[in-house]
């Protein structure tokens, strides 16, 4: 068994306790992956859906056309649905009696594991669409790879989510192309959006110890392995959209480890208000 960095080593005492409690149907942890690392990784998956879904839901009733309003609410619903599956699995693997809602509503910002990209404010509809496209192009590759996960629960969620996200990408890519190659103003806005968001794309492909542990046990691909496919999608779409790919340079990072932008705190202040103001109430 390859050794893991200290912070992702499974808590053996807890595992032994769990095994004792479950005696008769002992749950064997996925080979070579610490449960803590798995819980950490599942939160990354769930939090991306939760926070991006939240951002998209802010558009509901305010979209630039009725069809867009409906489409964007649909995507928000898909992402929130996926988040419930990922965080539900995180809760199950963790085995400490939490559920998906406890993860969503009772963690503070430092415990969130989403990418910085998805928490950025919506901006105009161009920023929202560009953020969506950049994320969708990554998300779909990730889910495709996860369909072959050694953990069947993860493969099952990925198979369901991949169908939804393939459509998200189809739609966001199509709109990026149309608006990039639309009027002068729509072109300018899409280029501005791309320039503004570019430095948040690098974080998607950074590997860390958690990712390595997931890769070693065949649970998930290394994020860096998705970069080529993402580059190809982005290059093709930007080319057709007549948009210029910004130069690679500094990339913001931190979300995967809980160091976020200032924006996340406000998202949570809003999202968690009722759970925080009325602790223990059932809704």
């Amino acid at each position: 068994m390859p050794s893991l960095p200290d912070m992702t080593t499974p808590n053996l005492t807890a595992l032994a306790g769990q095994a004792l409690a479950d005696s008769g149907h002992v749950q064997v942890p996925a080979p070579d992956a610490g449960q803590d690392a798995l819980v950490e990784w599942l939160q990354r998956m769930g939090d991306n859906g939760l926070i991006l879904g939240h951002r998209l839901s802010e558009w509901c009733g305010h979209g630039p056309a009725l069809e867009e309003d409906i489409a964007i609410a649909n995507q928000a619903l898909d992402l929130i649905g996926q988040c419930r599956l990922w965080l539900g699995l995180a809760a199950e693997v963790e085995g400490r009696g939490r559920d998906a809602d406890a993860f969503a509503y009772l963690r503070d910002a430092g415990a969130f594991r989403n990418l910085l990209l998805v928490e950025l404010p919506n901006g105009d509809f161009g920023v929202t669409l560009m953020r969506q496209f950049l994320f969708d192009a990554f998300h779909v590759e990730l889910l495709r790879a996860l369909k072959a996960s050694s953990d069947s629960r993860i493969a099952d969620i990925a198979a369901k989510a991949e169908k939804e996200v393939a459509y998200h990408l189809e739609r966001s890519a199509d709109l990026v192309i149309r608006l990039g190659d639309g009027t002068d103003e729509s072109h300018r806005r899409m280029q501005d959006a791309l320039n503004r968001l570019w430095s948040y794309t690098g974080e998607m492909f950074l590997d860390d110890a958690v990712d390595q542990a997931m890769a070693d046990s065949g649970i998930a691909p290394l994020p860096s392995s998705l970069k080529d496919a993402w580059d190809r999608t982005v290059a093709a779409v930007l080319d057709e959209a007549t948009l210029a790919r910004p130069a690679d340079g500094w990339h913001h990072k931190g979300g995967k480890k809980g160091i976020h932008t200032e924006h996340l705190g406000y998202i949570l202040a809003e999202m968690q208000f009722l759970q925080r103001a009325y602790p223990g109430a059932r809704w």
Partner: protein
Amino acid sequence: MYAQMVTSEGSKARKDMTPDETAFQDRIDRNEKIEPKEWMPDGYRKTLIRQIGQHAHSEIVGQLPEGNWITRAPTLERKAILLAKVQDEAGHGLYLYCAAETLGVSRDELLEALHSGKMKYSSIFNYPTLTWADMGAVGWLVDGAAIMNQVPLQRTSYGPYARAMVRICKEESFHQRQGYDIMMRMCAGTPEQKAMAQDALNRFWYPALMMFGPSDKDSVHSAQSMAWKIKMNTNDELRQKFVDQTVPQAEYLGLTVPDPDLAWNEDKGGHDFSEPDWSEFFAVIAGNGPCNAERLGARVKAWEDGAWFRDGLMAHAAKAGERARAARHAAE
């Protein structure tokens, strides 16, 4: 009711009708559906455009009061349900604008009339949603009142409107149930939650009663619309039905309807109840409700901020069409 005080055109006695008008009225009386390409009196067309347009506007403005709580929904499940519900309202708006388009008016024209204040939307959406319990009260009472009106409209004389209403009614009944489910949960919850639920009922009861429009004796346009089967019941009939249906539901929740004069009347087989304050209704219709400026402002802002987006898509479509023509030309 999502269409209130729709001005009806051209009330005529049978003896004054032209042969076309008589034949049209005969079709209506035989419960035949009128379809878009068929002859119809100008007044019928105009009245329907007003009514369907107002209904469509109510759906999209109606997204806003509930949209106000999507980002604050207390659980992931409630958030998904509320988002799906508000998305449904946008979908209803879409069906209804399409139904109106079959009468020869474009969606853009209707939106322009909404934004300039020429066309109205239901008064109910000018009330604020102040607590999570309001999501329950809106679903239970507002969607409940809407269903009361819309179920009979499935039999309305204009085909596209009737068919849109069939779909809408299916979804509305889910909306009402989700609202009532929120109320049940709140009423079985902590004292604070129950107080929130009572407060929501207190604030939404009379505005919900106003949704059916003024009393029949003050409702001048009902007769013609009913003859055309654009309107299937009088305002007072529907309001009575709503009260009779809702009072036992409130009792089941352990909530008190905020009307000291509410009482069962054995003789009429229905409840006696207090009329809403109609001066408040007319003030809200005239633009002085608590949220008129915010609601219309939000719609206008969405439209104006989205202009570049719509223009961009149109420009791209024109370019793509041009390129396709050029390619065809080159191939020939």
